[in-house]
């Protein structure tokens, strides 16, 4: 691993106690690893003048125009230049699974924190939804100084909740979000792919750009078990005594079909879909986000 990227190793990150420090380590490490930043700075850009009306903030009066015209004009800026981005973090119990490294929930938390940090650094408004069956916590998207701290604090305190019906909270979110923006869904997506795609289509219908990070444990991706094992569901799905060798092929086939379905569903709806392995560094996710972000500018 590149020296600069070692801070992005999820296992090293786990040893850092502060969520902000973790996010900074990821992002700074990530950015310093880039040879040349492909991204321009996003400053506030002038849009037009309008007559001052009582109640406007006097700081926005353009005194040079007043000197020329003797009228109070207020500068208006294009607000859209700052992206409103909402992180949707799945807190379901299935996210607590770990085959030895980081839990999926922790990995997702680090990813969300890193993205939030990166967004804040680029002066994008960042918001956070955590959800289980319903929305657990909500931090609205803002650019204000200190807001990042709120987001990171919320991420530090996340706890798993009971079984997730992924479709329901996503539809609720879609209804709640009035402004168009970018939505980043971080989840293991262990639900009916049709329902998931339907809810994602809902976002798209409302004009949101959607980015999906499908977080999976390496054991879920390879099913490396050997001895006869009793598999017990984390969300009360039941249990199964099985010889891994006997069920591995079918399991992997089903998993691939699931991913294929999600990928195709997302592709059709112009949704960026990325599968993340919790044993891999976070830079891959950050790159994916930046690529998507660049496409939106």
């Amino acid at each position, binding site marked *: 691993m590149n020296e600069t990227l070692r801070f992005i190793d999820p296992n090293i990150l786990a040893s850092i106690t502060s969520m902000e420090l973790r996010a900074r380590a990821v992002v700074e490490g990530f950015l310093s690893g880039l040879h040349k930043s492909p991204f321009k700075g996003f400053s506030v850009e002038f849009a037009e003048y309008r007559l001052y009306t009582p109640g406007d903030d006097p700081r926005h009066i353009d005194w040079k125009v007043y000197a020329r015209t003797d009228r109070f004009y207020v500068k208006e800026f294009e607000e859209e230049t700052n992206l409103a981005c909402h992180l949707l973090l799945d807190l379901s119990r*299935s*996210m*607590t*699974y770990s085959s030895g490294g980081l839990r*999926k929930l922790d990995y997702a938390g680090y990813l969300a924190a890193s993205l939030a940090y990166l967004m804040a650094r680029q002066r994008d408004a960042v918001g956070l939804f955590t959800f289980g069956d319903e929305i657990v916590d909500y931090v609205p998207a803002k650019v204000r100084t200190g807001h990042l701290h709120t987001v990171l604090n919320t991420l530090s305190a996340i706890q798993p909740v009971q079984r997730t019906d992924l479709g329901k909270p996503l539809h609720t979110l879609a209804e709640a979000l009035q402004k168009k923006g970018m939505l980043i869904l971080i989840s*293991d997506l*262990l639900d009916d792919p049709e329902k998931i795609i339907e809810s994602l289509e809902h976002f798209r219908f409302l004009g949101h750009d959607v980015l999906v990070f499908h977080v*999976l*444990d390496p054991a*879920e991706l390879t099913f490396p*078990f*050997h*001895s*006869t*094992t*009793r*598999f*017990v*569901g*984390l*969300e009360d*799905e*039941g249990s*199964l*005594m*099985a*010889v*891994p*060798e*006997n*069920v591995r092929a*079918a*399991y992997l086939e*089903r*998993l691939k079909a*699931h991913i294929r379905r999600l990928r195709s569903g997302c592709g059709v709806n112009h949704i960026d879909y990325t599968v993340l392995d919790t044993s891999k560094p976070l830079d891959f996710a950050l790159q994916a986000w930046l690529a998507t972000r660049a496409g939106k500018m």
Partner: protein
Amino acid sequence: MDFINPTFLGIAAIGATLPILIHLIWRNKTVRIDFAAMRFLLNQHKPMTRWLRLKQLLLLLLRVLALAMLGFAFARPWLPSRSDMVLWKKGNREVGIIYDISASMRAGNNRSGSVRALRSVLSGMKNGDVVSVYLNGAPEPLLIDREPWSADLLRDIVSRAKPTQRSGNLIAGLRLLDDQLVTSELAQREIYIISDFQKNNWPVENLRLELHSKAALHLLPVRDEPWKNVAITGIALPQRNSRTWSCRIRNDSPEDIRRVTISLYVDGRRAARKQLVFEPDETTKLVRFSGISMRPGQNQTGYFSITAPGDEFEPDDKRYFVLRRDRSVSVLLVNGEKSAGAGDELFFARRAFATSSSDFRLQETTPETVQPARFRAYDVVILANVKGMNSRKMNALRAFVENGGGLFIAPGDRVDAALFNKFFAGLSPLLLRKKAEENIDLARGHAVLVQDFSHPVIETISAPGSPGMGAARVYQYWQGTAQPGAQMVAVLDGDHDPALAFKNVGRGKVALLTFPLDVEWSNLPLKPSYLPLLLSISQWLKPARDAADALRVGEPIFLPRVSGRNERVVLTLPDESTERMRGDDELFTATEQAGIYTLRFAGRTRHFAVNIHPGEGQPDFFTPSDFNALVQTHAEVRVQGEVLQAGSPGGMEAESRQKLWRIVLMLLIALLLAEAIWANRVPR
């Protein structure tokens, strides 16, 4: 199937349960994983099929079998033959019974006790069992030869097994029955010995008897306690110009039998009578009768007789004799080391024979000059330290002996063992091994121990008034191995190597002294016993036509050769019955009664005195420890039902021959291979 170490079967059983226990213990300890992606696992068709369970059970079975096979191999299995397996299940036995009817069985209650013991042995048998009966002391010992058991067997045996006056040979009986049982198809084999176990029935041999049939031995002594007996153990007849007759009386029960009357009968008339009184600690007495004249020039017969109130054994109360006027014995002395003076090999022998010059005619020669055709002109040939002779001379010597001649061999330092054994194989009672010349204690030497006091040669030396051999010392001698038919008469103390041995070869006899006749290896020539020993050996070796008038019951009478085809030899037995035999009959073997046998042929008359073995009346018995020292067997030995020796597993020999453990081990290896392959295929 049987096992040498059946304990390992138990260990194998315990070992075989280990995989099952491990299986049971670990069965409920499967790995549990809390898994997130259950939706991809549930509702699979074959999460864990029955086939997998079956494979696991098969694997378990392989492991159990492998451990069981290991124990099985250590248990060392062996298979009895198929017939054994079939018959064994039926519980059939092959039983050999040695039933003693020798003279000593007439004493006390021995006879009734033996019938009781026989009845108890036979009552334990059943249909399908096989029986052989050896009558110890009978002229034809094998009474029943592997016949099926029947209810009439007891009556049959008792009616046919008449008591005899012979001595028995239990060793011969054991050997014969053991040889029979070796080939038995029945796995249960037993030998019962019903006897008083009198020592006279156990001839001393240099070989330890080893039984091979693995038959369980049951010793059934039938005597209650030593019987009370007074016996005549030896007699001395008047020599030339002597008028003294003597005999030795042995009282085995001096506390119970004190007064003994002894009478001397000559030619049917009582010639003398004496009363004896034994003190409580006095067991032998020498009785002399003097002043009884012999009829000049004639052979005479007679007997000593004793009467003692309380005497329980009658056969040894009479001792028959024949008093003969013998012609002189012609002796050929072959000198192997001729030299001047006392260094000559025959220096002492020559002088010994000279003392009785009227009885012996001597001729001396050397191995080089001896004429083979002249052997037959002599009665006895003495080879004194003779290294060997050429084959023509040896063949002539062999023919001489087989035709009745006597041969006396006294090997010394000139003899080579290998050459000797080559020349004298089949002739000599002993084959020579090596000279015993290590650790010679010149001050002590080896004493000569008489083994068979009843032998006619020894009787002469140990007769009342005779010197005996106790003073003689032997410093060097040839160690020898007894040959079949050899009779050890005297041995040397220490290792009990033979000193004097005899053997019958054809019609002749061979004697062997294991040291020479001079003083080079022993001081015997300087002792009083030398002269009578040398002379009595020569007398005994002379051809049967003039010798063997003193016989034991059962010993044959050599018949004279008559010239006419129709001429008959008439033998009158002690009970006055007569036997008429043809001239070409060589032997009369039915000397079953003690007494005087009279032979008439071609106008001539000859007498033979037949007596029972003097040891038969001696209440001296074989003990279990004596038995163990003499008989070697791996099978069980019981005395009156009590275990004397536990039997070692009978299948040792079969197991070592069959080596089934190798097959079992190969099976084990195959099982382990199968287990290894199967274990890789079957998921844990």
